[in-house]
């Protein structure tokens, strides 16, 4: 168990260092997926299977796939096909796949002969997680809800598109008109 924990920690550190040193965002994201999976593996080896599954589903699954899609979408254009061919060179995917293979091997070992080793492991099942989240730490959970509202409202405001209500040929005209109006109002007090 302890060896498995150390190996997955090592993979986590390696992949995270690769994330912050890659220049191409897509390469970095591939390593980020591996990083999340190794964290999941750490959770698993410490006896928290539920957290491990959540880590994979929420981070590696949902968020990163979204990231990768968005980064790829943003680069749509003539060169997209060319770029994609560049991205799929072995040099790019061999690193992350090797690290992922190490994690896979670890998981197979853990599942086939998972007797507790020298480390003291208490298994935390979903029921325990739920009881502590919705019992003891209910206030923290509610506050995290407000944290989400703050994030959503802030992002929605910053990312909002300006409404265009008039034809684009008239845009310049409208802008000068607005400017005149603003000049007229100018200052509250002077």
């Amino acid at each position: 168990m302890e060896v498995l924990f150390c190996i997955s920690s090592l993979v986590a550190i390696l992949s995270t260092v690769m994330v912050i040193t890659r220049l191409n965002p897509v390469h970095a994201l591939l390593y980020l997926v591996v990083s999340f999976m190794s964290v999941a593996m750490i959770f698993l080896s410490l006896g928290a299977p539920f957290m491990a599954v959540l880590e994979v589903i929420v981070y590696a699954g949902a968020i990163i796939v979204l990231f990768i899609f968005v980064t790829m979408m943003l680069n749509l254009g003539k060169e997209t096909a060319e770029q994609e061919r560049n991205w799929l060179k072995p040099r790019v995917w061999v690193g992350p796949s090797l690290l992922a293979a190490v994690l896979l091997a670890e998981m197979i070992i853990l599942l086939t002969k998972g007797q507790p080793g020298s480390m003291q492991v208490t298994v935390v099942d979903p029921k325990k997680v739920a009881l502590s989240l919705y019992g003891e730490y209910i206030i923290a959970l509610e506050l995290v809800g407000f944290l989400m509202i703050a994030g959503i409202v802030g992002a929605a405001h910053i990312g909002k598109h300006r409404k265009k209500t008039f034809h684009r040929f008239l845009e310049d005209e409208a802008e000068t008109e607005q400017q005149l109006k603003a000049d007229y109002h100018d200052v509250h007090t002077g």
Partner: protein
Amino acid sequence: MNELELQALLPFMVLAASSLVVILLIAFRLSHTVIQISGFMMMCLTVICMWLVRDTLPREIPPLLVIDGFAAFTTGLIVFVVLAVGLFSYIYFEEREENPKEYYILLFLATLGAAVLTVSKHFISLFIGLEILSISLYGLIGYLRNRNNAVEAGLKYLMLAALTSAFLLFGMALVYLETGSMDFAVIGRHVQSSGFSVLMILGIGILLVAVGFKLAFVPFHLWAADVYQGAPPPVTAFIATASKIGVFSVLLRFGQSLGLQNEQLLQGIFSFIAIASMIVGNLLALRQQNIKRLLAYSSIAHFGYLLVAFLPGNDNGETAALFYLLSYSVTLLCAFGIITIMSGTKQDAESVSFYQGLFWKQPILAVVLSVAMLSLAGIPLTAGFPAKFMVLASGVEDSRWIPVLVLVATSVIGLYYYLRVIGILFEKPEEETAATKVLHPFFYYATYTSLTVLMLAICWLGLFPGNVIDGIRQLLQLE
């Protein structure tokens, strides 16, 4: 959770509900005025609830929160600040290019975050409160998203705040590794029985990076001037007061329950940060021509002074710190209120030359700003004087001579730039400008009146600090 605990939580629930109320009002497409007034009412309701539940305090709400007299004072101060900031926001945002409605959601959420910080006695609530505060602040700082300054300030704050959150988590993890708990009281007991280990000091040192960033202590102060300049003036007032009150009060509580001040090395670190903040803040402000940046550097120096009251780690120091926070927030609200009311639609009234000869055009505003500057400088008869005096007294009593001497010396340097601003107010105005029409007369005069009231409060705190100090001591249950 029993009935009494729910009662003690009531003000915080109302505070949390106020942002939801604003969301609902926006959903029903109600106007800015309606939102502004109902926000004001919700904040008043919070204060009333605090008054109603005062008998149930102090009460612990295990495992995360404790609501006591200290928390009641700091939360009350934060809500009071938000009342004033909300009022200033109306005339500022009504005339700006952005839809002002979402602003109030973020403002009330940030208030909730700061309030949670004041009541937290556990790392989890500390972290969540700090995150609510900073995530709302990203949106607030960059609210006028078509202005380059605002976007730059928002981005700087975002990067640095995210980095310091990582530091905070790492520090917490180290402390947890050493003590096996995230509760301040349990950590304090562990420290009492087995002292500060190397790992523990390392963890607390890393925690201090995050706290130092939020309070803009000196090695972590680089963001302050740019963010103060780029953010809209009401938001700057909020950052300079409410957000710092929240973080400072959690630092006080953490220090109190761990006895941080008794450890030789940590004491040295705190003294160093205090001295560096006082010196660097005052020196950087000396030649500043932009009043927002000037106030940013002055606030760095003021939190250096405040740390001098934190150093002794006794009850007198705590009382001094709370009184200092009160007088400092009232004073800064005055100063930023003036900047808000003077700002034009295109540009904020930032440059000092903008205020040249203000006394001959707008005597009342000029007097309010002068009183605020005098109070920041710590001149007698204003709130700054008894506040600084109490901080000095608590430092002297504990014989912290070096920080005290630096405090006195840097206060003299500070006098120069505060008086320079006042001097500019009374110069001859450059040219006669035609008086422009007053927009939104109701809110304009409301702001005007509130500024006058704040100025009177500064003078009252300066003349009769005794009542307030007694009140604070009663809340802290020292008598």
